[in-house]
């Protein structure tokens, strides 16, 4: 094994790749931009959109209520909803977003209320639609207050204490540290993007250094030099790995900085009362640990991509082989985001999913060292197999000179 030759090939591939705009974009620009865009950009955008939605005075319709003039009059008095004339096709109006919600007041509502008889007020809305939700919420708040006031007045009339209908309160209190809460909510997304960027960072150089060389006709040039094919593939592999790791490091660093900046921004906006989900803190220990578990995965990706690409006749063909790989990688990475999927010894053997799950745990500050070791080991075995396949394929004439 000549390290000198591997080093010569690696240095050349590094210089060559760093002069290629497409490699630079996938290796440096994408990871540096995607994290701030996802955190600060998406955060700012959602604040903006919710703010806009909250500014709108929702138009709501009253159905019935002819014999409950006081309730209707009180509804019309509300400043944060606009009552529109009643129409029979209220459901279509809501679905078409012409109005936001409708409330159906049952016949004899006020009389029943006064008599202490039960009745049901129905609120019609467009589920999942933000502005409709705001309109329905406002109507619900109005009727809840009406119900509470009615209970209070009834109790008062019977000289009974206020708390009779509410003998005790239930208070839910979080005891987990903020980073665990934030990590549990957003933690899954972080490894998902790191793993994905690790793959995309390696993708372009892997295709360029193999199928690209075939297409440009330089493969025969390099094969007539005395460098052995094993050294050649290892030098190329190191370059692809460098791209993958550089992408991962930049993504992790950019992510940590973006969360820091995003948190400050949101705490500033909300005067220190930001939601727990936003209170995610990524520590230095977490960054180093994620890097360590992602490293063998990056080796696996780099070798697998290299093996797939060398098989292709052209850059285009390599793309068609590699694109489905994205789905293969995304699926286990997404599976880690599903609720209830917890890391165990069996899942620690499934590539990608294991790294995604353990990274999620690391972000929440949980370190299962035995599982981390198992994941590192299993990922290393997969990586070694992928390297062996790539080296083997580089020895095959029918692969190198596939026409």
């Amino acid at each position, binding site marked *: 094994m000549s390290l000198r030759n591997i080093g010569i090939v690696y240095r050349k591939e590094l210089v060559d790749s760093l002069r290629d705009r497409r490699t630079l974009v996938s290796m440096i620009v994408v990871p540096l931009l995607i994290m701030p865009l996802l955190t600060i950009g998406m955060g700012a955008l959602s604040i903006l959109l919710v703010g806009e939605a909250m500014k709108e005075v929702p138009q709501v319709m009253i159905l019935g209520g002819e014999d409950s003039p006081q309730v209707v009059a009180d509804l019309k008095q509300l400043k944060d909803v606009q009552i529109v004339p009643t129409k029979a096709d209220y459901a279509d109006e809501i679905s078409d977003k012409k109005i936001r919600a409708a409330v159906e007041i049952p016949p004899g509502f006020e009389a029943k209320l006064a008599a202490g008889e039960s009745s049901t007020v129905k609120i019609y809305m467009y589920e999942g639609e933000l502005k409709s939700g705001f309109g329905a919420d406002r109507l619900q708040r109005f009727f809840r207050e009406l119900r509470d006031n009615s209970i209070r007045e009834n109790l008062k009339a019977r000289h009974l204490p206020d708390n009779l209908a509410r003998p005790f309160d239930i208070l839910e209190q979080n005891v987990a540290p903020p980073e665990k809460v934030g990590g549990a909510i957003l933690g899954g997304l972080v490894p998902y993007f790191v793993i994905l960027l690790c793959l995309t960072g390696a993708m372009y150089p892997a295709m360029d250094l193999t199928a690209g060389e075939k297409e440009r006709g330089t493969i025969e*040039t390099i094969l007539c030099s005395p460098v052995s094919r094993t050294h050649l593939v290892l030098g190329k592999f190191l370059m692809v790995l460098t791209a993958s790791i550089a992408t991962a490091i930049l993504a992790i660093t950019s992510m940590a900085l973006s969360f820091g900046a995003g948190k400050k921004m949101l705490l500033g906006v909300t005067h220190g009362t930001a939601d727990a989900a936003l209170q995610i803190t990524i520590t230095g220990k977490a960054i180093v640990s994620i890097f360590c578990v992602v490293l063998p995965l990056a080796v696996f990706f780099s070798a697998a991509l290299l093996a797939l690409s060398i098989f292709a006749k052209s850059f285009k063909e390599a793309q068609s082989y590699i694109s489905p790989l994205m789905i293969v990688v995304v699926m286990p990475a997404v599976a880690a985001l599903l609720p209830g999927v917890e890391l165990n010894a069996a899942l620690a053997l499934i590539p990608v999913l294991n790294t995604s799950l353990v990274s999620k745990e690391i972000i929440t500050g949980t370190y299962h060292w035995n599982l981390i070791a198992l994941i590192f080991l299993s990922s290393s075995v997969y990586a070694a197999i992928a390297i062996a396949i790539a080296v083997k394929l580089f020895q095959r004439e029918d692969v190198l000179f596939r026409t």
Partner: protein
Amino acid sequence: MIEALHLVKRFRDKKRGEICAVNDVSFSCRPGEIYGLLGANGAGKTTTLRMLATILAPSEGTAIVAGYDVVKEPQMVRSRVGFLSTATALYGRLSAQEMVEYFGRLYGLDEPTLGRRIDEIFTRLEMNDFRDRRCDKLSTGMKQKVSIARTLVHDPSVMIFDEPTVGLDVMASRTIAGFIRECRDNGKTVVFSTHVMSEVQKLCDHIGIIHGGKLLAAGTLSELRAQFGIHDLEDLFVKVVES
């Protein structure tokens, strides 16, 4: 010195099954000689030369190149051979100097020797004006010179040229022809393949006519003319191939 000894190369093709691209080809070429492998497209020239350059391994037979067996010691062969073809392109994002340096290092040259060799070659081939220019920004003629510099950097004793003038204009072709002659004059063993009759007439000391993977006739031009009784090389070639 090159000695091809019963070289055979078979490929597997999904549609056509097993194909014998080179079938029992033997010839030899001594230092200071140019051996021309003359054949039509698909005759087996490229495959034969790729086996001599150890880019492909023979299915049967072997060749001794610069004293080393292509099957047993391919790396030793490669470090003594300069291989040039239209398929041996340049790395577009490297400069002319970086391209030659890269190969010089792979051939095991130390830095002082490499620097000296590059200065010599770049001066001789008048490449100093574009030594720092990226290969993808060079003209065809300049690229050809970089390829020549790449094959010469380790001062090989054997030169193999696979249709080196295909697609080149007259000036670039003349540069290559001049370079091939210079190699012979410097005592190198030269094998080159072509389907251009005029190139063979101008350059070759010995000629081998290859068709369907088989070497059908071999000898000097005058020997072949005498053997087949035909003076015109093109007519001679057609007769050999059709017989």
